[in-house]
């Protein structure tokens, strides 16, 4: 779709304009971009027809890497790659085991790993401070420690830059032989084998890439919220990522960002408007999307163009 770059540029511009016009939205939008990066990973697995119900584990790995390292190494430009590396390493080890499974087993085994990580983070109080969580303080940006409002702009800028980078990367990958083979796992995995292509390795690459993006998303969340708790690994957090993927639509790398922005904004405004009932509103939104717009927000937008 030729219009994707144009829409991406418009979207980025709209986000910057919103963050500028409504300063308190900057925080929300940074979180939305961070989650969007993680949801790109869910999108990759959806292309293979697989759903991970435990992807929050990679956000947690990225976030806790930041929390553990920040006291000794507060440099954001080092913490981000470190978080990515840790999540990628775990993604590779867990992925080697998981790519043997499909469908409900794949989804549930992801959930199982995430639950193990969640309980470790909660129970190992001496290391993780349990449910109290760890505060992230004193971050430096290329050696400098700017004022709070500037820092917020810098975090927003980093998240936006990485969102564009990973969005591009995922678009290019999905059009590549490996990306098209990945989509082949959904419809005719056996054909890949008949062609001499190991389907598990095709899926493993996608899984590791999704873990990497999960780690980066988690690190950005930790750097933005400045407080990391086991909640980030909880199963509802994983469900939220899948929710965002479906809300945004799996048809384009823009979907996760459309979904994440919509999700965070609905959450904020719904929570303000009807206090405890925002989950109900989100549930209703999801129901409407699944029933009437299975391509998600992206599907609605691209259908409008074609019409």
């Amino acid at each position, binding site marked *: 779709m030729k219009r994707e770059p144009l829409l991406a540029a418009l979207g980025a511009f709209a986000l910057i304009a919103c963050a500028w016009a409504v300063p308190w939205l900057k925080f929300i939008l940074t979180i939305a971009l961070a989650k969007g990066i993680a949801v790109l990973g869910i999108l990759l697995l959806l292309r293979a027809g697989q759903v991970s119900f435990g992807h929050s584990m990679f956000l947690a790995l990225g976030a806790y890497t930041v929390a553990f390292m920040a006291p000794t190494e507060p440099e954001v430009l080092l913490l981000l790659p470190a978080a990515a590396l840790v999540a990628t390493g775990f993604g590779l080890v867990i992925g080697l085991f998981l790519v043997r499974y499909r469908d409900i087993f794949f989804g549930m085994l992801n959930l199982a790993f995430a639950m193990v990580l969640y309980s470790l983070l909660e129970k190992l109080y001496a290391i993780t401070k349990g449910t109290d969580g760890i505060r992230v303080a004193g971050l430096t940006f290329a050696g400098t420690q700017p004022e709070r409002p500037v820092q917020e702009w810098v975090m927003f800028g980093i998240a936006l830059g990485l969102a564009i980078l990973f969005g591009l990367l995922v678009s290019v990958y999905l*059009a590549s032989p490996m*990306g098209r083979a990945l*989509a082949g796992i959904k419809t005719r995995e056996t054909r890949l084998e008949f062609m001499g*292509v190991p389907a598990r390795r095709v899926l493993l690459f996608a899984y590791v890439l999704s873990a990497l993006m999960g780690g980066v998303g988690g690190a950005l969340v930790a750097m933005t919220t400045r407080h990391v708790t086991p909640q980030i690994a909880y199963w509802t957090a994983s469900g939220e990522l899948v929710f965002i993927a479906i809300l945004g639509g799996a048809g384009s790398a823009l979907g996760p960002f459309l979904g994440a922005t919509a999700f965070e904004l609905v959450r904020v405004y719904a929570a303000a408007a009807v206090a405890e009932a925002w989950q109900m509103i989100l549930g209703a939104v999801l129901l409407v999307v699944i029933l009437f717009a299975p391509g998600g927000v992206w599907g609605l937008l691209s259908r409008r163009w074609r019409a």
Partner: protein
Amino acid sequence: MSEVLLSARGLRLAFGGVKAADGIDLDVRHGEFLAIIGPNGAGKTTFINMTTGYLRPQAGRIEFEGKPILGLSPRAIVRRGIGRSFQLPQLFTEHTVLENAALAIAARRGIWSPLAPLLRPRWRDEAMDLLDRFGLRAVAEARADALNEGARKLADIAMAVALEPSLLLMDEPTSGVAAAEKMAIVETLVRVLRSTGVTAVFVEHDMDVVARFADRVAVWSQGRIAALGPPAEVLADPAVRRDVIGIAADA
């Protein structure tokens, strides 16, 4: 180089009490078109499955280009140069026909590139050329699940041919194809296969197709080869006419 490309000896495989292979001995010669005929349940597909690594015979051996291949994985056997197509076409149904072909080309040329597009100009041209030879250029941009059965069969075989195998095993390439289309499809197929010089083994129920295009015919019956020879001889054999052709005419 020996004249024999594939050599099977004493293949045996029983499912419970059913002897799907009951001592199969067969040499497939370089460059020939060998037809396999026989009633349903005779073990024709089982032979293809054993040769391509999907089923492991309980006894016997199979050599390809003089080397044993028994016990190799289907993937390893494909890489040795044995391709196959399926009775039910195995296409990537949500991909276009062009992408299906390009993926098969990528499988041979190197699929492990995450940054260059699948439909890069050279592969697109190569895929288009392949589809052209199979008469599928007009449906290149259609989704694979939108094709009719004949086109689906051809696309399935085109993907196997894209891997440039030296031996191609085809399981009922014309079954399910409308009678009116059948001869045209077989003619296209034979023209492409002859131009590549591939050795072909194909399971076929249509005796006209067998008589016209096969160099030799093997008659399968209850897990054994009941007759083997040129079509003119084999198809004239009264026992074959009674047991196989009579049944095929009913089917």
